[in-house]
């Protein structure tokens, strides 16, 4: 067998997806299912005085309708938050449906259950709710002032303050002695994750055995099972959670959602299957949002521009409530505000703040794009101050290849890295010097179309996560992953994984790993996942963890299978196990190349158990649970070239180059796909996307006509390349690549825009860099038609 790992094998998942055969939650035919419609608060903040369900209940097809108070007794506990980041963190108790107060537009306040979706939605319009409208608080800094309290009972909007200041005096000293200091304030606008498939849920009472099956568009069936059992008060072992085909998540399906719990509770109460499917406008309000931070970023540097300290203060918008890992998101970036640079002193403080808006939570990159953005913008500001090229300032500060494993001042140990080659390669691909030359020419010619080049170097911590580190960060669960590998009697291999793919292509990558380990055809490997009855152990998929943690568990399980097979082969070939070599699925007696036994044949022997060594158990199957000793640290450099039209403020991305290092590559095709999508998602933050709220807390961008998700037509072809620096943290040397593009892209694009506008003296533009924002900045800088003044 020739090796398949490292080849561009087409994805096994795609034929089904492309022909429409894949089954998403809303495609599941569940006879007798009732449909749930949710009445959502039209006010950002309001007391619920009364809920009149009479008219809704009188509608044809309506089976039941409830207020939050009616359903209060269904809940064994409040909505779960798994990450109390500090001992004194304030977490307002809240339930899947508001009982007394609605705290954001979209908060559930009543439900209608009917025989059809249409009947439920029509009746929901007739639910009459008497609200006492309270003041909204939308702006983060305003919220911090406690002028308006989101949760009266807490007495403050401050949920927590979390600090990472290993050596405070060192930071003070560095700033006191600095030749250059950079002080910046950046805004991370809120983003709406916008997975192609909106959410959907069906809760089905068991026909026999167990209590319920919950089909849901989730990234985390395993975590959800535990927490749904606790919140709704059903037996965990009798609750089966299945994530069928899931159309993207980007973190937005990494949550325990009200609708999942409502369907479950209502199925219990009404003794019928209950289903709900989210429409796009609900998705913009009832599914978590990402980012939402104000970042105060400071750098201290010496005369050469070597950074001596970084000091960060964050305000993080929690939204109205803490969802599953809301408070922890800034912590995922907390260690990375020094990025790829060798910075001796470090200070990070984050305050989580409640506002009357949709809760925030993980969104692709979760904390790390924010960190990289602030740092890379600040590095460009430093380059301008010192008067050197942005590439040079980065070179001067990179952690050197000979410093790995590198202990960062933020407290991480970067396992491996080699940062400069990625920069050099990216500059080569971008034709960096030529673009700079053209930029110079254009500037002296005085035209109205300005060229800008933006760089961004990043490192991320992936492979969430070492369980002991999670414990130190007060996360309530571990970060291990599990896998089972079993040969079937027909010689096919069944793989069970605790990861939960929702677009990433695990079935393909996992098959490739198994194919090479066990010498089978990848088509003969079947990967089972996303069903808690089939894969009972798992921590699911997020944070670029699946390959480096779940893939490692899988690899270790195949090693165990090979180890056992070896004992059987040795027995059959009548040699000692040590006398066997193993390669490509075949055992060979050392020195006798004609005495061989294929692992498939061994598997059949293990199945019949007719002739096994004494004391050895039948069947060829093994499980492994892997808890990574460290994170993995993918890195890279991206370069973006833009043209800005000073007359209209429009930005055209002319060129985008990415050089990423995700360690050992299983399937370069999948890596490219992840990088392409990630880049556009990151660039979308820079150019297009923003969840805009008015002062009353209404989401203005509540449809895809106003919330601008870009399409292929809005971005040029990307040039990508990779370097390969294997991770020593796991046996395959893999790191993860799901978030790299998103992390690198926003700062690359914004740095390019600011570079283009630097002749006007412009040093800051908020994201997204809309034409109006750019035009306004040029006006304020005193520019006029015809060129910079």
């Amino acid at each position, binding site marked *: 067998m020739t090796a398949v790992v490292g080849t561009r094998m087409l994805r096994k998942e795609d034929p089904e997806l492309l022909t429409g055969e894949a089954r998403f939650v809303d495609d599941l035919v569940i006879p007798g299912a009732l449909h749930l419609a949710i009445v959502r608060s039209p006010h950002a903040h309001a007391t619920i005085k009364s809920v009149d369900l009479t008219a809704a209940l009188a509608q044809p097809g309506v089976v039941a309708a409830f207020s939050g108070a009616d359903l209060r007794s269904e809940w064994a506990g409040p909505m779960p938050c798994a990450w109390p980041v500090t001992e004194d963190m304030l977490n307002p108790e809240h339930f899947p449906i508001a009982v007394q107060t609605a705290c954001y537009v979209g908060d559930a306040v009543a439900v209608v259950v009917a025989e059809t979706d*249409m009947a439920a939605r*029509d009746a929901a319009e007739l639910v009459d709710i008497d609200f006492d409208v309270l003041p909204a608080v939308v702006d983060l800094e305003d919220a911090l002032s406690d002028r308006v309290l989101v949760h009266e009972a807490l007495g403050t909007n401050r949920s927590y303050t979390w600090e990472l200041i290993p050596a405070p005096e060192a930071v003070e000293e560095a700033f006191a002695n600095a030749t250059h200091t950079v002080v910046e304030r950046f805004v991370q606008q809120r983003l709406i994750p916008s997975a192609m498939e909106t959410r959907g849920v069906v809760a089905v009472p068991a026909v026999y055995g167990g209590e319920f099956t919950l089909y849901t568009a989730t990234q985390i069936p395993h975590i959800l099972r535990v927490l749904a059992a606790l919140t709704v008060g059903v037996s965990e072992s009798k609750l089966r959670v299945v994530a069928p085909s899931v159309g993207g998540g980007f973190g937005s399906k990494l949550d325990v959602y009200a609708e999942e719990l409502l369907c479950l509770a209502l199925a219990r109460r009404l003794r019928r299957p209950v289903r709900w499917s989210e*429409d796009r406008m609900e998705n913009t309000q009832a599914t978590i949002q990402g980012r939402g931070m104000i970042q105060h970023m400071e750098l201290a540097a010496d005369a050469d521009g070597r950074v001596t300290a970084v000091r960060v203060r964050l305000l993080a918008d929690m939204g109205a409530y803490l969802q599953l890992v809301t408070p922890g998101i800034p912590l995922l970036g907390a260690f990375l505000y020094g990025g790829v640079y060798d910075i001796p002193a470090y200070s990070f403080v984050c305050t989580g703040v409640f506002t009357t808006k949709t809760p925030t939570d993980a969104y692709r990159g979760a904390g790390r794009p924010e960190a990289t953005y602030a740092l890379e913008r600040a590095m460009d500001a430093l380059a301008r101050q010192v008067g050197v090229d942005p590439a040079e300032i980065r070179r001067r500060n990179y952690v050197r290849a000979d410093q790995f494993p590198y202990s960062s001042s933020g407290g991480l140990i970067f396992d491996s890295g080699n940062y400069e080659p990625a920069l050099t390669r990216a500059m080569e691909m971008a034709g960096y010097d030529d673009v700079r030359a053209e930029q110079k020419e254009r500037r002296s010619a005085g035209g109205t179309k300005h060229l800008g080049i933006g760089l961004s170097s990043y490192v991320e911590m992936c492979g969430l996560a070492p369980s002991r580190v999670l414990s130190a960060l007060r996360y309530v669960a571990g970060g291990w992953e599990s896998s089972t590998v079993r040969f079937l009697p027909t010689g096919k291999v069944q793989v069970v994984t605790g990861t939960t793919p929702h677009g990433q292509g695990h079935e393909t990558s996992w098959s490739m790993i198994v194919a090479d380990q066990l010498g089978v055809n990848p088509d003969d490997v079947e990967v089972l996942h996303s069903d808690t009855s089939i894969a009972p152990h798992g921590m699911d998929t997020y944070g670029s963890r699946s390959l480096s943690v779940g893939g490692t568990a899988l690899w270790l399980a195949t090693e165990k299978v090979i180890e056992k097979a070896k004992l059987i082969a040795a027995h059959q070939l009548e040699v000692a196990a040590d006398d066997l070599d193993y390669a490509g699925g075949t055992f060979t007696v050392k020195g006798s190349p004609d005495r061989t036994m294929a692992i498939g044949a061994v598997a059949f022997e293990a199945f019949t158990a007719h002739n096994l060594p004494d004391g050895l158990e039948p069947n060829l199957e093994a499980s492994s649970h892997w808890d990574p000793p460290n994170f993995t640290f993918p890195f890279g450099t991206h370069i973006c070239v833009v043209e800005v039209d000073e007359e209209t403020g429009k930005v055209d991305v002319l060129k985008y180059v990415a050089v990423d290092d995700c360690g050992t590559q299983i399937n370069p095709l999948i890596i490219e796909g992840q990088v392409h999508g990630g880049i556009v998602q990151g660039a979308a933050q820079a150019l297009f996307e923003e969840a805009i709220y008015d002062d009353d807390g209404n989401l203005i961008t509540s449809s895809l006509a*106003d919330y*601008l998700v870009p*399409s292929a*037509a809005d971005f040029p072809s990307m040039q990508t390349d990779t370097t390969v620096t294997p991770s020593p943290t796991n046996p395959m040397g893999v790191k993860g690549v799901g978030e790299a593009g998103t992390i690198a892209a926003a700062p690359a694009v914004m740095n390019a825009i600011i570079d283009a506008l630097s002749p006007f003296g412009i040093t800051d533009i908020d994201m997204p860099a809309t*034409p109006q924002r750019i035009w306004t900045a040029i006006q304020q800088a005193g520019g006029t*038609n015809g060129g910079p003044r």
Partner: protein
Amino acid sequence: MITASFEYRRAGSADEAIALLTENGDDAKLLAGGHSLLPLMKLRLARPSMLIDIGRLADLSYIRVDGDQIAIGALTRHHDVEVSELLAREVPLLPAAAGQVGDPQIRHRGTIGGSLAHGDPASDLPAVVLALGGTIVVRGPGGERSIPAAEFFNGFMETALAADEVLTEIRVPRLEGAGWSFQKFNRRAHDWAIVGVAAVKTGAGSGSNGEGAGVALVNMSSTPVRATGVEEALASGASAAEAAAHAADGLDPPSDINASPEFRRHLAQVLVRRALEEAGV
């Protein structure tokens, strides 16, 4: 994002559609490509009790020469306008603009008649028909009438079309090689225009070649609107650049997340200047 319930009828002819409209009054709506009406219905901003589907009236889908004009059937899809060789030769402004409407799916469903009847100030084709000085032909219980485009758009999404009338045809003059331009400014390729400009070089005026221009604007007012300030400036001796400065004269452009009125006025000036330059005025 699911419509309220409604009754559905398919009309076999324009006359049948008119009869159904007459019978069912204000609560009935014609359905052509559905790409303006259905989004409103899904938001439940429109709740007609009956839809009369005219989408399959093949005899209202045509593009043909009629003397010094081109006649276009109301049910002609944007895509058919976009790829029409006849139009590419005779009125290239129209296919150029139609090719920038939304995305391919929208262009294969949406109709030119629907676009004009809807009268959305942010739509591209109404401005084009205005700039061209076209005519809109409508038919009702009392017969047919022709309305100059300049008199067709009355208010925000309000037109001269009566509730019991069907728009049947759009007529535009053949350009005979005259310069033209369509400038659409948006953030994403498939978006509506933040501001758009349609310009056609016309008879005598004061442009660089001694000619004037028909200029109309997208999304600069509550209706599709002619840039009369520009047209008048050109007629009275201004250069293209000078005339462009009058792009927003007398207009009260909308404000939304993409642009303030002030930015829209500025964009209109820039885009009109570019349009006039491209049209060779």
